[in-house]
């Protein structure tokens, strides 16, 4: 228990414990620490990568095409002589943007739909559930392909497509979590304290759904990267020569048979590490947003 922390001002106290709590979660669980360190690395590459890489990711150099990894070119060069390392690092920004934007979009949409359905129930709930069932009845990747193919081959559309196929998962989690708390004592008490229904839902009930949502978010971030890369791999979405992990794996795959393994391996490895990072983060994120873990 926190007997030793004498509170002086509630505001300061709260910030202290939040930071302290994050530090505690990271200390307690080395896996979470590793995941957050890797996340830091990826965020760093996304923000500073383009200005730090040794070569221009788009500059071709026919004289040095298809060179294996060396001190000059850590990850080797591709068939046009472009530096694979620079391309892998620069691609981080695009891939993270797509996955974070898609997940944020589906998180917000799913939360709103799920909260409304879970809180008011009735016909809204029934209609929404059948609608979500319909989305889930499609093979999701095929649905995403269809959306991108129909709307056009742009990055925004990849984001929309990835968001649409993820919405049902968020909406269902939120709906269940809100529904069981709809008549909880604290929701009733909030009503007595003069809160409107909307405010009770947004301020009192919804935040309680965050811990399971965080697990969903982290799994989804990894999954969204895979999805975006998958779309690029089959030729939908990001187009060459833009550096993107999915395209790089797709293009590199042609050279594996002839022994140029580095073209596909390194972007694939980065993709795997990114997905891995997000999946490992889940438990840590949940513990951070759950006040019950603070003791």
């Amino acid at each position, binding site marked *: 228990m926190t007997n030793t922390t004498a509170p002086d001002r509630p505001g300061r106290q709260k910030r202290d414990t939040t930071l302290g709590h994050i530090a505690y979660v990271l200390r307690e669980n080395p896996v979470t620490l590793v995941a957050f360190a890797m996340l830091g690395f990826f965020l760093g590459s996304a923000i500073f990568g383009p200005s730090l890489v040794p070569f221009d990711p788009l500059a071709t150099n026919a004289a040095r095409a298809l060179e294996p990894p060396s001190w000059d070119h850590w990850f080797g060069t591709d068939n046009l002589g472009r530096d694979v390392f620079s391309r892998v690092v620069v691609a981080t920004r695009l891939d993270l943007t797509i996955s974070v934007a898609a997940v944020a979009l589906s998180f917000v949409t799913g939360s709103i739909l799920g909260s409304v359905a879970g809180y008011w129930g009735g016909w809204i709930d029934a209609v929404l559930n059948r609608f979500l069932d319909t989305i889930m009845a499609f093979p999701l990747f095929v649905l995403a392909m269809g959306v991108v193919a129909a709307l056009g081959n742009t990055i925004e559309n990849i984001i929309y497509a990835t968001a649409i196929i993820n919405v049902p998962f968020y909406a269902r989690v939120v709906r269940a979590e809100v529904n069981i708390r709809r008549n909880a004592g*604290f929701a009733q008490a909030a009503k007595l304290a003069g809160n409107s229904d909307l405010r009770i839902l947004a301020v009192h009930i919804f935040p309680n759904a965050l811990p399971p949502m965080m697990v969903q978010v982290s799994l989804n971030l990894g999954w969204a990267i895979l999805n975006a890369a998958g779309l690029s791999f089959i030729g939908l979405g990001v187009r060459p020569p833009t550096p993107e992990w999915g395209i790089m794996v797709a293009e590199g795959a042609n050279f594996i048979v002839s022994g140029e393994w580095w073209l596909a391996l390194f972007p694939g490895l980065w993709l795997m590490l990114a997905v891995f990072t997000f999946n490992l983060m889940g438990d840590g994120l949940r513990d951070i947003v759950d006040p019950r873990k603070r003791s």
Partner: protein
Amino acid sequence: MLEVKDLSVAFRTRKGEVEAVRGVSFDVKRGETLGIVGESGSGKSVTSYALMRILDAGGEIRSGNVTYGGIDLRAASERNMRDVRGREMSMIFQNPRAALNPIRKVGHQIEDVLIQHARATHQDAREKAIRAMEDVRINDAAARYDAYPFELSGGMCQRIVIAIALACDPRLLIADEPTTGLDITTQKAVMDLVRDLTRDRGMAMVLITHDLGLASQYCDRIVVMKDGEIVEEGDPQRLFSQPKHAYTRRLVDATPRIGASIRDLLPPEERTPQPSHIIHDRPLLEVIDLAKSYPGKSGPVQAVKGISFAILAGQSVGLVGESGSGKSTTSEMIARLQDPTSGAIRFEGQHIALTPAARFTTHHARRDIQMVFQDATDSLNPRDTAGSAIAEPLKRIEKLKGAQLCARVEELADLTGLPRPLLSRFPHQLSGGQKARVGIARAIALEPKLLILDEPTAALDVSIQALVLNLLVDLRAKLGMTYLFVSHDLNVVRLLCDEVLVMKDGEIVDRGPAAKIMSNPDHPYTRSLISAAPQPPTAPEPEKRAVN
């Protein structure tokens, strides 16, 4: 028959090892009923789990001996323990619904045990199961055989659990809070049944309970536990008349009983004179022909069937009834959390039921009608600190901000006896009594005229209940509030209330001044409620009389 010597049980947790039971020794003789009494966290349940060797993961018997009829239970193999459980010793648990498998017919669940212990074959299992159900006084047992647990009432489920526990004629029955969560009349029926059955079969019983009154009524001998240790042992009469240990004395004092006033529940050194409250001669609340029905499978279900009553300003009225009587629905309608189907609610002469519950938030009477909820844990948002929970009504309705808000929250904490440092804690870091105080502080933050108390002490230990009830008495005198106290326990209602309304099946069957209802009830239902309440042996000491 059962001998426990120096038993210690420890649990491994995140914060290191916790000793739940420390050097406990007791024995149970053939045919005897032993009560283990203690408040939550005293280690009484852990002790019983250790006897049956069904401790949770992380729990371990550290030292001591448990012998049953000459067998060393600590050394016995898991295989032998399986034979001992059920055949020699068996157990009934706190929540009968949780103890039964929800998707199997209750008859089959009894058969399972019979067949498992070779008491029946597949051919005669059904017949024996029905006989076992008849033994626990289930009417029409052959029809109930095919029922699922959710189709039966709580009391009926507990009877099935008892039938399962007794199916193989064990010689020792361990009952862990067998009646917690049951209505008071059901509690009496179940306890009488268990007593008769154990007596007829010459069985011994260990009754684990937090209720000293209940234990004293059904046990031959009582051990009192606190913090994993036995502090006192003796026969009920003696424990009540001459408790030796200070803790036993506190428990005895805190148990509501005939002739004791609300201040008598506190330890003697804390008994300040009881403040009186002023009752005005004008009605604050009038309930006229209030009715509520819900749509049900076979037509509408009438939860409240047209009740009328009035509460004078400053008066405390108790609304007593068992589960399903409609008392909670009534209180929620008055608190304007639910809309009545018909009827009127007049608050200070105004018809407040005309504003639908969904829009009552902005009604000017919102601040004057507040409520303290039954389950303090459930009524606090797990993500909000105690301080922000209390601040909520002040921020939303009173529009207080900053330093003013802080000052008022601290003032309310002082008023309800909640230490200020606890304001920054989250609900899971508070004890049951502290959470109850937070709930009360939040409800009185706006100084409401009418405070509805929905079983505010039902989930609390008796010693905490005593403190909370006394706090309510003090607050009433200080703030001049009117109380509507909803409870199933007449013994508690009597302590706090001037008038009592008794509800049954959605109707008010009995009403009158609290003293008259208790001493001279008109209605047979009220009489059965009063007689069902466990009465601890009364042996008031002379000094107590003097205080009264």
